[in-house]
């Protein structure tokens, strides 16, 4: 640490290097911290989380009961103990609340005054974050599984919507109309993602176990389909050609730089693809338990030197090295299946929501002061024990 600081001071290192090192360290030390709580508002499972990118302060959550909550993540109290408060809620009593489970929520990428939510009640609503009233509402024919707005788009304001219908719908927020459909899939669309690198590139995942990459400017069809065998026909059975997984594909995530794409499927696999060529990089993540029938929201870290993937895996969150495929750790804390997790890039915190109605904040452990003095060490131990007597062993003497 000191070495990094010194190198940074003397200008030997790239400015990002210290930052990367520290954020990597912090990600590696993520754990459940009892100083950080998130208000329990949801009375039902939490399906989706989203943290806005402008201030990194507000977090949206959508629950299976149709409730949408906005949390304030910033701790202004100057105390380590902090409970993330729910600023406002679209509760069941609200007139505009979604009737059924909210599947996806997303902040408008350029402003916190608006967010979009989609639900199993076949609607997608565009909300005014100030008044908590829907500014616009899109009706669809089937359950809406997912939607996504491009995080970088300047030239368009399209929302890609995946529904029960195999056609991907594109809704234009400017006109408030559905302007385009993308045809090609043969099953329900479980996940859609815009590339964070090219604003017209869209990836969609479907129950027909295919993942397609689209250029929305091109009307004729998808650019290409991801193939788990990289075109090696001998390995693939006839019907498994051009499939990304052997089961439903229910999760999509671009890396922060947009060069790679991660997919998860119900075949308990996670795959990393080169998003430019559609090539399977064949990173082996091992078994990633995935029984979700709906979309799975997982995330990658940002700004670390080896990047990490956080993927819900049963009742815990698995942390993998992105390119190594190595399982770093399992974050255990939920008591039921985890459905979504969201990484906070500024604080290297992870928020996860699950069916047990909890939103858990995984906070990096603070670095212990580097003291090699024996005396202070024992003293510190003493003080810690004094602070928290519960950590002390309590062997009674009668066992002798």
């Amino acid at each position, binding site marked *: 640490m000191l070495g990094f600081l010194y190198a940074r001071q003397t200008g030997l290192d790239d400015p990002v290097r210290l930052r990367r090192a520290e954020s990597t360290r912090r990600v590696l030390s993520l754990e*459940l*911290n*009892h100083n950080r709580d998130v208000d*329990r508002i949801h009375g039902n499972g939490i399906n989706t989380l989203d943290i806005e990118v402008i201030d990194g302060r507000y977090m949206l959550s959508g629950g299976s009961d149709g409730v949408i909550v906005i949390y304030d993540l910033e701790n202004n109290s100057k105390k380590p103990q902090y409970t993330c408060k729910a600023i406002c809620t679209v509760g069941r009593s609200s007139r505009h609340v979604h009737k059924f489970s909210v599947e996806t929520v997303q902040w408008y990428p350029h402003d916190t005054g608006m967010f979009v939510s989609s639900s199993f009640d076949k609607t997608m609503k565009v909300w005014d974050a100030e008044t908590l009233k829907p500014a616009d509402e899109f009706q669809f024919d089937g359950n809406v599984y997912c939607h996504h707005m491009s995080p970088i788009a300047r030239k368009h304001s399209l929302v890609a919507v995946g529904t029960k219908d195999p056609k991907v719908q594109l809704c234009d927020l400017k006109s408030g109309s559905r302007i385009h459909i993308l045809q090609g899939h043969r099953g329900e669309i479980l996940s859609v993602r815009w590339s964070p690198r090219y604003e017209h590139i869209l990836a969609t995942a479907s129950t027909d176990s295919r993942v397609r990459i689209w250029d929305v400017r091109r009307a004729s069809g998808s650019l290409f389909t991801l193939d788990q065998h990289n075109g090696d026909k001998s390995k693939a059975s006839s019907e498994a050609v051009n499939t990304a997984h052997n089961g439903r594909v229910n999760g999509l995530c671009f890396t922060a730089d947009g060069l790679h794409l991660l997919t998860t499927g119900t075949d308990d696999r996670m795959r990393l693809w080169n998003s430019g060529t559609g090539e399977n990089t064949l990173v082996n993540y091992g078994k990633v338990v995935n029984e979700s029938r709906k979309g799975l929201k997982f995330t990658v870290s940002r700004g670390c030197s080896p990047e990490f993937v956080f993927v819900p895996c049963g*009742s815990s969150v698995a942390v993998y090295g992105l390119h190594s495929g190595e399982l770093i750790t399992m974050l*255990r*804390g*939920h*008591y*039921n299946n985890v459905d979504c997790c969201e990484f906070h890039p500024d604080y290297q915190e992870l928020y996860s929501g699950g069916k*047990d*109605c*909890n939103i*858990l904040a995984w906070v990096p452990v603070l670095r212990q002061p580097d003291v090699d003095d024996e005396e202070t060490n024992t003293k510190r131990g003493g003080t810690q024990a004094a602070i*928290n007597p*519960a*950590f*002390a*062993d*309590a*062997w*009674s003497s*009668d*066992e*002798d």
Partner: protein
Amino acid sequence: MDQTMRDKLSQLVEELTTSGEPQLNQDKMKEVKKICRVSDSYIDHFYHLIMTQLNQEHAEIRLSAFQMVNEVFSRSHHFRVLLITNFQEFLELTVETDAEQPLPPPKEVARKLRTLAIQTVQSWHATYGEAYKKLSLGYHFLKQIKKVDFQDVEARTLAERKRQEEKQKRLERIYKEKLDKAKQEMEEMTSGIEETLTEMNNCIRLLATDDFNLFDEDSAASISTTAEDQSDQPCCSKDLSNEHNGKMMEKKTDKEQTDESSDESDMEEVPDEDAFLRSTGLMSYRYQLELDVSADLKVRETEENEALVNTVRDLHRLVTTRHLPLVQSWVQVFTKVGVEEELMRRATELKKSLEHVLRKHEYLHIDYKDRERLVMRAPEDGEDDDDDFVDVPEKEGYEPHIPEHLRTEYGLDETPSTSTSGTKAKPSRPVVKCAVPPVSSSLSRLKRRMCDEEQDPTCAAATLRVLKQKLHPAPSTSVPDGSSESAVSSSDQSNMTKNKASFKAPVIPFGMDLYYWGEEQPTAGKIIKQTSQHQFWVPHEVEEEVENKELSAQMKSRCITYAGKFKPVEHKCKAPMPNGSLCERQDRVKCPFHGHIIPRDELGRPVNPEDALRLEREKRKREEEQPDWRDPELMREIEAATGEDLGSSKTYGKGKKGNKGKSKKKYPNLTDLKQKANTSRSRLEKKVFNKSSMRRVTEVMNKMDKRKHEKFANQFNYALN
């Protein structure tokens, strides 16, 4: 880390968890704690051991393991960290948070485990919840998601409560339906019931005029206790004549007479009252006259009240079979559901009045005639014997004392002891004696029939005969004319001996053999053959007689089917059975299971030594004839492979004792889960659902199907399916 210590720890954990006891053995637990205290690595090991044991599908193992967890949890921080990291699984295994992963049997232990686990988690949360985030999360999870009520002593989970609620709801719905039905029924039926009630009340009132005040509760009670009427009035006929109801008169006089006769010993004790006796014909001033008025209040069916009695009878049947159960069911439903008072009151009132009427009816003791008798009698009414029928009251069962004047009507001779009553100085002339001149065969037959009747235990004559025999050997000294009595008895006896032969002779239908009794049958067994059937042409020899031996034997002999008396078998087979008891079969000669029945003692051993020897020999022979599929070696192998008991262990002791240790249970202290499955249902299932029987059933059903197809094969309709 010391390997021996590790092994010891493993052994201790296993011993403790498989003890099957509700509490841990403190000494062993102390040792475990001592080992765990040494180092965290032991705790690691201990943790893994415990988690393995918690995963066992046996509630007792889990309970013990949980108790150990509780002991160590409060002591070691390292253990707490380990456990809390995997707290979710721990809760699944102990609190049953996952509905698809229920706690294993036995049930009561599982319930105990859950209760204990919930209480413990609560106390852990109180102590350590601050420090261990996941623990408090788990607590909240239990509390808010699983809705475990920590105050609830029964510690029911949400699912359980829901189930209970549903059950409650269902019950309520059923009750409501019942209630509605009952209400509706009540509305419909009440008027009918009330009508019946009034009708019945009126009938009863008509039958027994209410002077008795019978149906007043307390007066009825006073009447039912025998009213001892100790009046100095010499004659109580006045009282009796006061009896308003003419129907009862006859009965009462009967009563009086019997009373008198039973009181005769009293009379004898006052001999100095001769004057009174002479003047009144009564023996005493003081009669102890018992009047069982209420108990004997009997209404007999006569012609004038026949209609009434019929109605009462019908109504009674209606009330007992229909209305009362109905009303009772209403009351039951109402009490269960809890309805408005008014309805309830009405129902109970109805019930009460119904019961009251029934009670009244009981007081009446109505003597119903047999319906058949009534029908029979109707056309004969005008005939000569009608006076016999009209006056004779029905008797229910036998009466020890039969009034003198009725004796002949009963077809009995007068018992000598009763015939001595002073009031009736009629010379005792037994009917039998005068009726049986020994030569007269028709009369002897009558006599015989009477004897037959006496033989028949259902006949009144038989009981009387028994009585008579009892009375003979004990002639009372107080009887004045003992000589006549003895004469009667002696004549009786002579009659008996005379009749003995004829009594023994069988009665058989008349036949040819009797017709020619003691003579030679001339045509016995002779057949006349007619060789030609021609009308005019007559053969030379007119007829030909052929003697048939068989036929002649048939003519002379007579078949008498022997119907011997059924003698119930009194011995039992008593052969010892595998379950320790003795065979209870009562076959006459041979038990289908144990062969010829031989005398055995109470332990089932044969009494005769030669029987024992024979049995022994047979047994040995049977053992040798053991079919080869029951070869004990083979059976043991099959058992080891399938895990089912085929009974090789009891294969006649020839098998080695080697497999005894193998079959012994691994943990004898634990409740055997498999044993529980041995219910009547499972046994039946084994029989019904085993392969061969299923195959048989399917075969039969296939055959039936086939037959149908064959039958209608030529019909397009059936040919298709």
